[in-house]
Structures are given as structure tokens and as C-alpha cells.
């Protein structure tokens, strides 16, 4: 039972982790905490729903169209909404993302209505069943898919940021934009790329979670909040921080939900996180100094 809950926690946690990753990448490179992040992903889920369920297009193709759309939204938001106030007021950028949240919620309502739309799992085969002395663990195939895709994305991201010239250039911009320019790095392009990556990750997270949550305007609210919390827990700094933050929140939440109270699982998880922040305000893996802010 405990193992089953921990496995379930890892699956949910892996979703929190990539949402946190997407937030952190955009934040590190451009200094903006994107409060519309989940809602940007939600729009992609609706795009998928439109192509797959309404038009009847192939699952995989619709999936990639939706992710490309997420990438485009990421690009457009950074370039058109945030760039103009970038050097004027960092606080404005945050509030613009809050405005964007309202707009996206309204747009979804306007176009697709308030109904919960269903999206089928990609994999519906028999669940993986592990038997051992203490009991059995059942993992549905869709959850294995989530775990696999998330792991692949994280590995790809680590390789990109650590091994490619462009990835290193992006990290350079995150550390010091001005010095990066002196190297000949087009920091403006890197900022766009960071939001394109962030936008596609957000879309991916929404598509992975959609079969469970259904598609509706606020579908990503809890994922967004938990993603934020995971990022904060990880110190809003690093990839490992986001992963550890996400997985631990996923596990805490599932255990609390099972053994304490289903209704209050978010509250309890948040309380634990606030407690951690009181002891260590810079997060679990964050460093005391803050470069952006």
C-alpha cells in the first residue's frame, strides 16, 4: 500500500517536476516567474482536443501540433508581452503574466465552453503488475508513459544545457546577460528559445495530465501551483532541484491524501513546504544568494 502510494506519488511528482523545470528555465534566462504557465499549457490541451476529438486527426499528429502550438505561445508571450517592459519593471512582467492567466482562461471559456472534455489515454493496455513479498504494485500503462516521457525530456534537457554550444550559451545568459553579449551570444534569441522550450514543456505536461483531469479552463491550476511549489522547494535554481522538489511533493501529497485526508492533501503539502521554507528560505537545493530578482 505504501509502495503503491509512493509509486503514484512519483508519477504525479514527475509531472510537477517538468512543470517546475519549464518555469525555472524561463525564469533563469529571462527573470520572469510565469504565473500563466499552466494556462498556456491548458490552451494546448484544447488544441489537441480540437484536432483529435473534433476534427478526428491522428493522435500522435495532434499531439505534436499541440506541442508546437505551446512553443509558439511561449515565444509570442515573451516577445510581444514581456520584452517591451523588460528593462522598465520586473514586477510588471510578473503582473502581465497574471493578466495573461485571466485572458487565457477567458479565451478557453469563450471558444470551448465550460464543459469537461475528455481525452483518451494514448496507452490503454493492461497495467504493469509487480508482485513481491509485501504486496503488489499496479501501474497503468499511461502512467508508465508519463514517467518515460518525463524522464526522456529531463535527460534531453540536461544534455542540451550541458553539452551543446547553444545550451551553454543559454546558461551564460542566465548567469550574466551583459557578459554573454560580450561573447557574441545573441541574448535576445536565447530568451526566445528559453520560452519556446518552456512553452513546449508546459504543453507536454498539459497533454500528459489531460486524460486524468479532463480538459477545462482551470485544468492546470493545481499542476501549476504544485509546479511552482516544487520549483521554490528546489530553490528556483537548478534542474536537480526541480526534479527533487517535484517528486518529493508528489510523494508527500499522495501519502497525505491516503493516510490523513484526501480533501486537505493540497493544504497539508503546502503547509509542509511552507515549513521547509521557514527553516531554509532559499529552498532545499537553492543557494543563499539570488542572482535574479
Amino acid at each position, binding site marked *: 500500500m505504501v509502495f503503491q502510494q509512493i509509486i503514484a506519488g512519483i508519477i504525479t511528482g514527475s509531472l510537477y517536476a517538468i512543470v517546475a523545470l519549464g518555469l525555472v528555465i524561463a525564469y533563469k534566462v529571462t527573470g520572469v*516567474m510565469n*504565473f500563466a504557465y499552466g494556462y498556456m499549457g491548458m490552451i494546448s490541451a484544447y488544441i489537441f482536443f480540437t484536432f483529435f476529438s473534433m476534427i478526428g486527426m491522428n493522435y500522435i499528429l495532434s499531439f505534436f501540433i499541440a506541442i508546437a502550438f505551446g512553443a509558439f505561445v511561449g515565444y509570442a508571450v515573451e516577445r510581444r*508581452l514581456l520584452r*517591451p*517592459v523588460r528593462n*522598465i*519593471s520586473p*514586477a*510588471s512582467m*510578473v*503582473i*502581465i503574466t*497574471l*493578466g*495573461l*492567466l*485571466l*485572458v*487565457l*482562461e*477567458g*479565451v478557453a*471559456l*469563450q471558444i470551448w465552453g465550460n464543459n469537461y472534455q475528455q481525452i483518451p489515454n494514448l496507452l490503454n493496455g493492461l497495467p504493469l503488475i509487480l508482485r513481491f513479498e509485501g504486496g503488489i504494485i499496479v501501474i497503468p500503462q499511461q502512467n508508465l508513459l508519463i514517467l518515460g516521457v518525463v524522464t526522456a525530456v529531463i535527460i534531453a534537457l540536461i544534455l542540451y544545457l550541458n553539452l551543446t554550444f547553444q545550451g551553454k550559451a543559454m546558461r551564460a545568459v542566465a548567469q550574466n546577460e551583459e557578459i554573454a553579449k560580450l561573447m557574441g551570444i545573441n541574448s535576445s534569441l536565447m530568451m526566445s528559445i528559453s520560452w519556446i522550450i518552456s512553452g513546449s514543456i508546459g504543453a507536454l505536461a498539459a497533454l500528459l495530465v489531460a486524460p486524468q483531469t479532463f480538459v477545462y479552463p482551470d485544468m492546470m*491550476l493545481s499542476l501549476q*501551483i504544485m509546479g*511552482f*511549489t516544487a520549483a*521554490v522547494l528546489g530553490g*528556483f535554481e537548478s534542474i536537480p532541484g526541480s526534479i527533487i522538489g517535484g517528486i518529493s511533493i508528489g510523494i508527500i501529497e499522495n501519502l497525505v491524501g491516503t493516510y490523513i*485526508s484526501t*480533501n*486537505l492533501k*493540497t*493544504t497539508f503539502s*503546502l*503547509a509542509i*513546504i*511552507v515549513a521547509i*521554507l*521557514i527553516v531554509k*528560505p532559499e529552498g532545499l537545493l537553492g543557494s543563499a544568494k539570488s542572482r535574479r*530578482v
Partner: protein
Amino acid sequence: MKKYLWFIPFVLVPLPFLGYPFLLSIFVLIGIYTIAAIGMDVLTTWAGQISIGNAAFFAVGAYTSAILVVNFHVPFLIAFLISGLFAMIIGIVVGLPALRVSGFYLAVVTMAFGIAVQQIIGVFQITGGYNGIRNIPVPSFWIFKASNPVYQYYVVLTIIFLIFIVLSRISFSKSGLALFAMRDSEIAARAFGVNLLKYKLAAFAASAALTGLAGSLYASAIGFISPSQFDLTLSLDLLAMVIVGGAGSVMGVMIGAAFFVGLPFLLSGYNISITIIQGVALIVILLFLPKGLLQIFKIRDLFKKKVI
């Protein structure tokens, strides 16, 4: 005394609408949201902190007041004051740890707090769970039966006026200067020996108290509360009212509240989602009119000295 003159037009506002109680009740709502938005303004403009969880204090005020009045038959005026006090206590309890983090982190912590309060309210018996509390009686003020929206309007207006007097006193006092110093530069403020945590906490507590008071008025004006009324969108709306209207001024906050409360009624005949317009307004204001709608009306300069 001159600086209070701008209030006079608001005293006259209900006169043309005496025969339209529905319109008057909208004005009452605008007033109530103005109080809550002033609470937000105290935090953002004065202390430079962003909260996206103030709906929680609104909820705390609304529920405290409703439970006291409905379950314990406490007179409204006392329930009203207790709800402000209780919201303030919660504000301090939350503020103490929350203010150890700042900037974006505080935004995340307050967001978490807002969500948590909404969830907690939905669980307990005394708050009526997800169904909320119905039939909250309309308060009576001594000889007035406040079911008449004209009375409600003047009650709310008086409260705003009192808040305004207190705020303008504070802004010219030593504490006000300390708050401004803190907003502009934490390091500079620290250099001048300002006890940052104390002032931040004071701003947070004041913000919570004002929002709680507004929540109490809201509960009795609407007569029905449930957890879904106090969601993240409400927190965002409160922040947006401050920014859209014009931060740092009671007048600006009023304009913002009027915009956000009045708009849905104006557009109720059209099939258009309100949040789109609200969000677009917020973004457009930030991109093109950083000082808020007040700037359009060109009245900011007129009132600048009087307000903060």
C-alpha cells in the same frame, strides 16, 4: 481639510439612482471591493510586496462575520470588527514565516496560502463545506434597516473615508516614510535602521485586516458565501484593481474596483467572457499606462498631493 474635498461627489452619487436599488447595490459592491483593494494596495504600493492570496483574508472576514451573525447572533457591528481583527491575526501568523521570503517567493507562498484557505473552508462543518452559508441576515444599524442599499452605500462610503483619513495620516508619519524607504530599497532602508520585518509585517497585517473587513461587508451584502467565491481569480482581481485603477491612491483603487465590478454588469447582455477583458485591461495598462486608468482621466495630478 482641503484634501478631503474630493469625497463630496461620492456622497451625491446615489441621489439620481434612488429608484434603482439594483444599480445602488452595484455601487455598494464597488465600495466593498475598494476596501479590499486598498488592502492590496497597502501591501504592494507601500511595502512593495506582491500577494496573490488576499482572497483568503477576504474569505476569513466573510466567514467569521457570517458565522458570528448566523450561528451566534452577534450584532453585525461587533462581528464586523471581529472579522477584521481575526483576519489581521491570521495575517500576522501567515506573515511571520511568509515575509522571510520576498518578491516572487512571497507571491508563491501567498498563492499557496490562498488555495489552502479555500480548501480548508470547504472541509469544515461550521463553514458549511462546499455549500457555504446561506441566508446571512442583513445587518441593522441602530435605527437604520440596512436592507436599503442607500444606507449600505453610505455605510461603506463612510468606512472608505475613515480608511482614507488613517492612510493619509500614516503616509506623512515616520512609519509611512519607513514603509516607502523599504519599498524603494531594502538595503537603503536597512542602512537607515528601519526594522524591515516589523514594517513588512505591519503592512501585511493592515492588508489582511482591511481585506477581512471588506469580506465581512461582502457576506452581509450578498447574503450567501461559498468557497468557490474566494478563488485565485479573486486574488488576481484585487491585484488587478490596484494596477488598472492606479496604485498608491484611494481614488485610483476606486476606479479599478468600479472597472472590475461594474464591467460584468455592463457586459452581461453580451456573450463575452469577462476575464478576457479584465486580463487585456491589465496587460494594456501595464504596457502603455503604467500609472493606471487614473492617468487617462488626467486627474492624477489634481489628487496627487492629497492621496499618499
